[in-house]
């Protein structure tokens, strides 16, 4: 019986059809998905902080509105993604506990600090750009609810990327101080953006099984190459330099050659030794703990309403 179910599952996946919440699935598939989607949801929620850092100081009212709307979108993405994990039997409160206790990860990029307003633009352009490269293939991932959530997320991310790029274009047309600010920001965010695709394929433990299950569609190195190829002409148009002396077009391969990020730094940040790891988690933990009485009150009130037959 189990074998038949497994065969049916394999056939569905091989045929590029979708697995839906009520379909049978192997435990490993379910666990892998919960872990991956939860990490993605956590990344959206933690990712609100570095950009949220500039809402109060945004230098024009239009930029303030755009930034606040963008950070709000990230909260929305976190919400759909937590909902997608709930279709797999996970529980949002439990996943939140895992995040604030440091038992589940989020994207390491958010452990870097946002130091100037140019970082808001560069995060839109490079970080959201890298996220889109990672996420567009997930619109075809084998698990239906995740794939559908990703379509909406990608549409909004694509809009964020444009807004970031448009901010940088505007700043590059401004004063020299603004242009210097943009270049400095690109210098700080370029390598962490390349790290967003994960370690080289030769060192990535999760890739192979996820590819077979069609959860993952491309390897880390393929996506990194795609991102570099896409970004180089955008950087030229913007008028900034990417801080990699090895970066050059390779006619033979039809791709850019480029240097490797500092993987030691990557692993240090993953292990918790980035500039903001502790701060990001403490911020999230404080919000969660400070809000506990509100959530309890809402539950208590709802329970009373049910008891009184109102709701």
């Amino acid at each position, binding site marked *: 019986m189990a074998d038949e179910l497994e065969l049916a599952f394999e056939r569905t996946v091989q045929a590029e059809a979708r697995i839906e919440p009520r379909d049978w699935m192997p435990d490993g598939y379910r666990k892998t998905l919960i872990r991956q989607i939860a990490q993605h949801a956590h990344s959206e*929620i933690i990712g*609100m*902080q570095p950009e949220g850092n500039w*809402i*109060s*100081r*945004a*230098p*024009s*009212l*239009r930029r*303030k*509105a*755009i930034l*606040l*709307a963008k*950070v*709000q*979108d990230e*909260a*929305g993405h*976190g*919400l759909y993604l*937590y909902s997608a994990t709930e279709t797999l039997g996970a529980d949002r409160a439990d996943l939140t506990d895992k995040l604030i206790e440091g038992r589940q990860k989020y994207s390491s990029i958010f452990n870097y600090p946002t130091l100037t*307003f140019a970082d808001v633009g560069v995060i839109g352009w490079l970080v959201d*750009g890298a996220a*889109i490269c990672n996420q*567009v293939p997930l619109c075809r991932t084998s698990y239906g609810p995740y794939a559908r959530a990703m*379509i*909406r997320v*990608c*549409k*909004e991310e*694509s*809009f964020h990327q*444009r807004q970031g790029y*448009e*901010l940088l274009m505007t*700043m590059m*047309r*401004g*004063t020299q101080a*603004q242009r210097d600010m943009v270049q400095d920001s690109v210098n700080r965010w370029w390598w962490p953006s390349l790290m967003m695709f994960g370690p080289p394929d030769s060192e990535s433990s999760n890739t192979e099984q996820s590819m077979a299950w069609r959860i993952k569609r491309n390897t880390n190195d393929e996506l990194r190459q795609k991102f570099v190829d*896409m970004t180089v002409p955008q950087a030229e148009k913007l008028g900034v330099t990417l801080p990699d002396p090895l970066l050059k077009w390779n006619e033979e391969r039809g791709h850019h050659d480029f240097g490797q990020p500092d993987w030691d730094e990557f692993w240090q940040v993953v292990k918790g030794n980035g500039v903001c790891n502790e701060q990001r988690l403490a*911020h*999230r933990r*404080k*919000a969660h703990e*400070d*809000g*506990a*009485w*509100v*959530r*309890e*009150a*809402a539950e*208590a*009130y709802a329970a*009373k309403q049910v008891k009184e037959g109102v709701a």
Partner: protein
Amino acid sequence: MSFDNAYESLLGHEDSHWAFGTGFSESLVGVDREIPSTVDAEALAIYCLMLGDDALIMSQRLAEWCSRAPEIEEDIALANIALDLLGQARLLLSRAGDVLGKDEDELAFLRDERGFRNVHLAEIDCGPGPGGDFGTTIARLLVFSTWRLALFSRLRGSADPVLAAVAEKGLKELAYHRDHAAQWAVRLGGGTEESHRRMQAGLDRVWPFVSELFLSHDVESRLGGVAVPAAELKSEVDGVLEAVFSAAGLTRPADAPTPLVAGMAGRDGVHTESMGYLLAEMQHLHRSLPGATW
């Protein structure tokens, strides 16, 4: 902007699926911006600053909750309200700018504290900072949105076509803000012992700032038919709040007179000490790069 990448096809060219649209276009298209000849233009500019600053400063305070709310849904809701108020602020500052020959950013970022005309209720720290918590924030939002909704519903008939249009547009937003705050007040008031205590404490904290909302100002008397006299709003606001307090089991705190300095309050540019810090944070980047374009 043409944007050559692999995801363009995903995006399409349709704006309707974005929560806030992608255009951020002028929302008062077609409204006559000419200042009617019967209107005292200088008084109109001051009045627009009063209402615009209320919205701008309240939005700045609400946005402090971003990434700090008790649950994700509430993070989204508070950001939504902050965005609505920021939108109202931009329209009102732009209207003041029609008279003063300045744009919204010059007015928001280059005025000093004494030039801001918002009421104190908008500027005080009601949390997530040390000045309050979610209960205090809801208490302020309840009072503020009830008062502003009463004001905007009368402002729809303003002799200034721009003010009338801003009021018409803002009404739906403010009705949602008031509803959101009232629902939370009822939930917290009737939730747990702790939530009841905190909601009542929040109300007690903001109440000393309520009487200022109904103070008359001579600018209103110079704008007959254009402005709404603040004193007219009191009975409607009292009635709505009374209904909410009763549903929430909350006690209306005793009224206190507005603390004045040489007869002046927020509408005259005299603020609480927290205002300077709020403006320092909000304005520093704009001011530190003169001539920059954003």
